[in-house]
């Protein structure tokens, strides 16, 4: 059992949990994730580790309430416990020693970026962060990003705050203006990462995307997370989740995320079952 020490609603349907997980906190590196299970009848949900505090032995997760399983998670409050948390999973971010880097994040992809930006800074880079949201009230981690990045651009799709447009637009402007960057790291929805890759491709800027395919075990045992990178099949949970964005077959990734769409819709409509937790507790004895 992993105790929830703090729960904050950062925006509508976006929750930040601080969880006691000492071993994970101690071993985590930027770019890694964990898999959680809310109770004994739940799915395993992969979630990026946004931040850690190894002194306190805690990890921070930021969750978008998307469907059934994340809804069940949202029922848990500070003081409750999550049944299973396993990690840190995946390869740490490999950025080398860039002089100038960009982080491009969208929605709940932004929090994971905070430790990536910090790592780029530690490697001696100047970092521009471009973070995008649908509208002003969905903005998260703005202050945290401002604190770590050298420069921050916030975009909103509807223009309710900051730059009016998609994250790819300021990115395109910078590159078109002849600014040189050694690396671009992007985390967010598949469509966004794909668009970022297309923007940087003509400039030949090394671009890393953190992929989020469907996963089960997260240890390389099931192959659910397979993605095609440079024509080869890779397991995102152990070979990734970060890959060269110019080599990733994003169309296939998008297709594979739809595998359980029908079942998920059904589960979502059914909503979270109150009785489940009780039942799960009973089974635990």
């Amino acid at each position, binding site marked *: 059992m992993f105790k929830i020490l703090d729960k904050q609603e950062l925006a509508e349907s976006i929750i930040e949990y601080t969880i006691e997980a000492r071993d994970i906190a101690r071993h985590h590196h930027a770019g890694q994730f964990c898999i959680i299970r809310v109770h004994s009848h739940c799915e*395993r949900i992969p979630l990026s580790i946004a931040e850690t505090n190894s002194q306190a032995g805690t990890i921070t997760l930021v969750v978008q309430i998307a469907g*059934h399983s994340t809804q069940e998670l949202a029922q848990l409050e500070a003081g409750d416990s999550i049944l299973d948390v*396993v990690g840190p999973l995946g390869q740490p971010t490999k950025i080398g020693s860039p002089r100038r880097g960009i982080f491009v994040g969208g929605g709940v992809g932004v929090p994971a970026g905070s430790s990536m930006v910090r790592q780029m800074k530690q490697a001696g880079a100047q970092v521009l962060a471009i973070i995008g949201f649908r509208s002003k009230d969905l903005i998260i981690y703005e202050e945290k990003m401002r604190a770590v990045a050298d420069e921050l651009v916030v975009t909103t799709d509807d223009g309710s705050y900051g730059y009016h447009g998609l994250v790819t637009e300021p990115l395109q402007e910078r590159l078109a203006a002849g600014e040189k960057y050694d690396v671009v790291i992007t985390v967010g929805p598949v469509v966004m990462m794909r668009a970022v890759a297309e923007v940087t491709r003509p400039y030949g800027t090394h671009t890393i995307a953190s992929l989020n395919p469907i996963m089960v075990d997260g240890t390389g045992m099931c192959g*659910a997370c397979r993605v095609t990178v440079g024509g080869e*099949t890779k397991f995102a949970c152990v070979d990734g989740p970060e890959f060269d964005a110019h080599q990733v077959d994003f169309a296939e990734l998008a297709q594979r995320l739809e595998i359980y769409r029908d079942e998920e819709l059904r589960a979502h409509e059914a909503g979270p079952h109150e009785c489940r937790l009780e039942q799960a507790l009973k089974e635990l004895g």
Partner: protein
Amino acid sequence: MDAKERMKLEPVPMRERDVSERVAGFEEVNRGYSEQEARAEAERCLQCKKAPCREGCPVDVDIPGFICLVCEGRYAEAGLKIKESNAFPAICGRVCPQERQCQATCVLSKQGKPINIGYLERFVGDYLIEYPPEQVGSTAPTGKKVAVVGSGPAGLAAAGDLAKAGHQVTVFEALHEPGGVLIYGIPEFRLPNLTVGHEIQALLEMGVQVRTNTIIGRTLTVPELLGVIGFKAVFLALGAGAPIFLGIEGENLPGVFSANEFLTRVNLMRAFRDDYDTPVQRGRNVVVIGGGNVAMDSCRSALRLGADSVTLLYRRTRAEMPARIEEVRHAEEEGVDFQLLVAPTRFLGRDGRLAAVECLRMELGEPDESGRRRPVPLEGSEFTVEIDQAIVAVGARVNPSARLVMPGMSQDERGHIIVDPETLMTSVEGVFAGGDVIGGEETVIEALSHGRRAARAIDEYLNS
């Protein structure tokens, strides 16, 4: 009764669920022997002096010994007799490939009527679960801590023996439940999770600690275990759980699954039950590729999830199928269509999902390095089958992440951890390995025997 009379007795068949009842759910197919049935079957054993059956058993169970006790109705003693060499009779009685092991070498197999040693072992194993014997005098604690990594049969067997020797054992498991393949792979209808659960419960009662959700190499490292955390020895029983794919076109289409993913969703994550959230594709027209137990388990699970048709594609013939004979028979009875000497060449999609598989017919050519005749494609024999789900069950290998577990440890080119054949010690002092991760037969009983051997070697290592 003399030997001649005994030889005239007919084998006692296993009672099985009807096919219609079987495919409607995941209940165990074999019902188990009743006491009368067990005694009647035990009656047939000739109690051979040389006991050739024992030679076929990888752990040398005293087969005539335990069968004799069954004859006398002393079931608990029979169980303890088996446990001298095999810690988990209820499991092995169900999953050992007996037709290639103990029953193959039983003298009565010449008449095609070997003693049903597996069924008897299962009976005795289940008896011990129902009527657990008193634990007799535990060894004085040694105060030494041993870490077991992986909770499959190798890890569990080692944990049991190490605990008996008085060591303080912690089993670390990556998944959220212990049991390894016994829990996440082998389905309920063949090996109920409850049966495995009883064995694990018994270990807990002996003081073994189990830490799930802990990946050694990630959550904790072996150097930490041996260093600050204070373990004196480590046994790596990581299994060989990484799925092998065919490497053919279209294999990443939605609708194509590894058997591991499919079976894990069904067994570990209970997708077949409405009260669990796990999604699983319930294919209508399913092909399963492979010829081993994993392939049979996948076929039979797909049928139980409601498939209209399940076709098995295997590139050799029935004689080369590595699956247990009983699984093949059950699969066939349940309606799996066996397409032998057939290999898939590519998967075809429509609207972003799997729609068909193209196959090629094969014939058998010269024997390959495994001694089995190599399948050779027949030119121009392509044909396609419309399907909506394909499950690939063509084998597994050591997880490449195993190298994270103990950096610098020697592994062979296939990833198997290299060990001293006697002590199972790896190239790292105090670190031992066994089960599928070191290669070999890749059976439950062999993994168990490695666990045992490692426990003995670790005990000696700690006492030296």
